[in-house]
């Protein structure tokens, strides 16, 4: 699904990632870990073409991300669900409207979308706050709403960038459970976190592998959990 081949990403003349190679097969669950500032967010941005590699090749759904034009990038993002650490909501729209945004920009309308939306709200437990504005949500509710928005277009790949960074342990567990459920539905999941306790907690729930960023390289950190 996603394949990095000798990818280097430089910013301001210095490399943040240096000749990184790995692949995320379909239906896999990977954690991406490493210290703060190690490049986890950069790597995730490279996956959905928010950043372009300085060298090497990134293939998403078999397509070279470097060859995508603006529209190509837009279509790629419709098929990759991203949960951002800061959620990135439009604060003047309700939770429901924010979750439905990806369907609007991709031109989907109708009862099916509404049905999906209601199911999603129920699944992430946000039915009660569906008409609230994002600033009024708690950290956990925001992350669940961001997850719902990432899923509304039924993407095959879920990229989650520190989704548990601003929530308590209980909510972290709940989010992890949702991501595990998605993986069991066949979605490819990449979850960036520096929370080792969360990774250990996942041990009993899913066959996950850990990618560690260290010294500008990505290492497969040991065997299955």
């Amino acid at each position, binding site marked *: 699904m996603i394949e990095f081949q000798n990818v280097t990403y430089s910013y301001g003349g210095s490399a943040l990632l240096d000749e990184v190679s790995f692949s995320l097969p379909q239906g896999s669950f990977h954690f991406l870990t490493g210290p703060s500032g190690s490049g986890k967010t950069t790597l995730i941005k490279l996956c959905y073409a928010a950043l372009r590699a300085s060298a090497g090749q990134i293939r998403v759904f078999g397509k070279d991300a470097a060859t995508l034009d*603006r529209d190509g990038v837009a279509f790629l*993002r419709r098929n990759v669900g991203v949960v951002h650490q800061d959620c*990135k*909501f439009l604060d003047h729209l309700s939770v429901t409207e924010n979750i439905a945004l*990806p369907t*609007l*920009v991709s031109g989907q309308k109708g009862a099916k979308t509404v049905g999906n939306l209601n199911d999603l709200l129920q699944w992430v437990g946000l039915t009660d706050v569906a008409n609230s504005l994002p600033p009024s949500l708690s950290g956990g509710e925001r992350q669940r709403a961001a997850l719902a928005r990432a899923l509304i277009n039924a993407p095959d790949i879920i990229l989650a960038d520190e989704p548990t960074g601003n929530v308590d342990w209980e909510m972290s567990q709940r989010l992890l459970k949702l991501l595990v459920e998605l993986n069991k539905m066949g979605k490819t999941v990449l979850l960036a976190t520096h929370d080792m306790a969360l990774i250990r907690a996942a041990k009993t729930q899913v066959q996950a592998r850990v990618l560690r960023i260290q010294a500008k390289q990505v290492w497969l950190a040991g065997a299955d959990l």
Partner: protein
Amino acid sequence: MKGIIENFLIFLIGDAQAERMVPPTGYTVRLTVFAAAAMAFLATFALAFSMATGRLADKWTSELSRSATIRIAASAEQAMAQRDAVLAVLETTPGVESYRVIDAEEQQDLLAPWFGEELSLDLLPVPTLIEIVERPSGFDAQNLQFRLAAEAPGAVFDTHRRWRQPLVNAANRLKFMGWVALGLILATLAVVVTLAAQSALAANAQVISVMRLIGARDSYIALAFVRRFTLRGLLGAILGVLLGILALVLMPAAGGPAGYLTGLAPSGSSWLMPALIPIITAIIAFFATRRAARRMLRSLA
């Protein structure tokens, strides 16, 4: 053609939910409506002015071009003989539709503005005046001139061209200036809408960023702004034109020569011309916003 109409209707009706993605930016939107209304108001006047001067030029051209005057300056004894000679010449001149000697009473009326009502024509050496109206096919003015010189040496033939042409030129120049003013007003409108759109786009950089992250194409994002500014421009222009027309209708009426100054209101089918201003404004707003949006989106890449 059907596709264009469908796209236009989709654009007009729009996707209310999609447009909601852009937060209501009250200030820039109100600014656009006001600027469009003000410019449309001015454009209505410029258009009316241009059309009025055009009508004036046409009126002067059509009313005066078919008339000429023969003035007979001769002693009292010779004047009558020369007048008869002139009339005889006119009688046999092809292209002359009618002619008449301006009588003393009418001459008195013509001179009254300068010398007063009590003037006695006997006190002034007033020449005999003969007015000629030519047929649409016209007559040979040079030939007539030669014949008058031979038959009535005291007759001075005047086609009015000498003083008519500068007036017609002036009216045409005024008409042209009216169109120039109209063009400048519309260009200014384009600038104002562009600046307002740029301001709105800059203020919504975060919104644009989020829309891109969720897979919105730049054309989709641009359309949300373009639609908003086009419709606001159209609304403002309709208001401005309605106010302009109201002002034209309410202008105090003045008959006679002063009517040229106050009779700016269009007449007949000319009333449809101001209706074009909102359409042109909407087109300008559409392209100005689209250009601004595309440039801004490119720069935000």
